[in-house]
């Protein structure tokens, strides 16, 4: 089976993040594989181990993303591709990324493409479905279970706490939701071998893509940190008084109702 995984290098939102001049400071930030993409990598490895084939991890971004690709190789992926747009593109949005990835994937005859359900930085959840749309293949998002039998696929997908079982077929793109699996830690032998596995680096030129054709359509107006959490307030008195006070606070102070 020919399996592709789309992964993204993101900053670790559990570490301290600083914003200056409308940009997230990369200096002190820790970078990781987007956690949802880790589920995708794990699933891809499991599918390959069961059905045979090859797992290729693909990312688009800057040179530094090689680290995340190597980590995926250390987990057990077979090959990696870095589409390096560092010199060509200033801004990336979902349109740009999906267009480039689809262009790369169009002649790869992928049976299965996995991506994360959402990236924890941008949080749009659009890249996977957009790629599927451009490739004209089936797409199921936020999956929590995947069973493949020949070209028949049975999927359970998460629906805001409920689940839905879907039957579909390859070729297919799925996006991974938490609960799909427990991503493995890279093994030490895996880490030692990761450097020797093939990692191909491409630029837009190599894909015959004109920068103008994939120019970002989204303009970022401002980047700022969420306001600091204020200390909570505990209402006191009779239950009925508390309820009416809460309602009035929600209306007049928080202005949410």
């Amino acid at each position, binding site marked *: 089976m020919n399996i592709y995984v789309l992964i993204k290098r993101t900053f670790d939102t559990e570490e301290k993040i600083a914003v200056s001049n409308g940009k997230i400071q990369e200096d002190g930030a820790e970078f990781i594989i987007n956690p949802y993409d880790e589920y995708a990598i794990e699933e891809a490895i499991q599918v390959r181990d069961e059905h045979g084939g090859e797992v290729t991890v693909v990312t688009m971004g800057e040179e530094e993303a090689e680290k995340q690709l190597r980590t995926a190789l250390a987990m057990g992926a077979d090959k990696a591709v870095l589409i390096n747009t560092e010199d060509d593109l200033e801004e990336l949005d979902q349109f740009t990324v999906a267009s480039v990835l689809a262009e790369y994937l169009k002649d790869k005859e992928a049976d299965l493409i996995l991506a994360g359900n959402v990236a924890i930085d941008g949080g749009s959840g659009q890249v996977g479905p957009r790629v599927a749309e451009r490739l004209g293949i089936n797409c199921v998002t936020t999956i929590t279970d995947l069973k493949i039998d020949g070209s028949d696929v049975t999927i359970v997908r998460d629906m805001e706490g409920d689940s839905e079982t879907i039957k579909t077929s390859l070729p297919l793109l799925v996006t991974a939701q938490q609960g799909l699996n427990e991503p493995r830690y890279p093994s030490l032998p895996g880490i030692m071998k990761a*450097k020797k596995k093939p990692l191909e680096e491409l630029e837009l030129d190599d894909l015959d893509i004109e920068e103008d054709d994939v120019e970002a359509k989204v303009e970022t107006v401002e980047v700022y940190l969420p306001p600091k959490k204020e200390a909570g307030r505990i209402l006191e008195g009779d239950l009925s008084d508390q309820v009416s006070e809460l309602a009035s606070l929600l209306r007049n102070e928080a202005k949410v109702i």
Partner: protein
Amino acid sequence: MNFDLTQEQEMIKKTIREFADEVVAPGAIERDRTKEFPIEIFRQLADMGMMGLPFEEKYGGAGADTTSFAIVTEELSRACASTGITYSAHISLGGAPLNLFGTEEQKEKYLVPIATGESFGAFGLTEPNAGSDAGGTQTRAVEDGDDWVINGSKVYITNASYAKHLALTAITDMKDGKKEISAIIVPTDAEGFTIIDNYEKMGLNASNTTELVLENVRVPKENLLGKRGEGFRQFLVTLDGGRIGIAAMAVGIAQAAFNRALQYSKERKQFGKSLSEFQVTQFKLADMAMKIELARNMVYKAAWLKDQGRPFTKEASMAKLYASEIATDIANQAIQIHGGYGYMKEYEVERYLRDTKLLEIGEGTSEVQRMVIARQIGV
């Protein structure tokens, strides 16, 4: 000069750090209380291929370097020092002498199960009357036909209850009134071999520390490790490497103590200010951070020298001595910064002090390290 870790070392650090935080740290207080050996953690470490870290692939290892070993030991110890010492002893006392001095057959038979994590590694040197002065060894191995017959006892041996076999030192001959000491590999299920696990320790409670009693234990002559009469030299070489592990452990514990002290000092308010606003606390934290940085650099340097195949005895001793002494100091100061809370197990810092004290004693006391360094600098 280059202070960057390699890509592999970087990846190993990230992986083991996550593992330490997610898998090792959560049960550390509980294991300290129940003295439960972290066997499940080691099953996972074995799955990750960590148990044979520095050994060649053909013996089931991963062929990683000493710096990587130091990184893994530091990170495990940061989360749980009992787990750290188990790992460090497994690799550097259990596996390393077999790797260094074993024949091809011995490596196949004894190193492979250690590298794959099927057996824990252990090393029996210390005796009731032979500690710093290992020449005081009294355990004897007498030739009898094709066998060695061993009698004696060992004390404070790490990991032996979980080892399928271990190397131990014994007197194999007397020449001109001088002892000939050799190392011999003994299966722990051999008849007459008793392993007693009932010490009540100050710390490192979840690690396995045992007493070995050997009564007419028979092993074939081929179980001699390395050359006859070289036991003394062999364990000196083994301990050089082991000291890097102890030093890395100390850095890990010190880092853990510092992290907690830093965090607590920002949260705790007295006199209307957080502790971190008092200059005395700031100075303490600055000193801690400085010492940890220095200790870690020394550990990495010793590890690097070893990987370059260069002499590293002096540096390993310095790293071990310095790191273990600052770790005790830092753990102690971390409790002080926590006040009464630090005296409570829930806040973890008191365990760091109990755990780290051993590092000034095991694999050569601080006094022995000073003797080694003095010899190395030509006094």
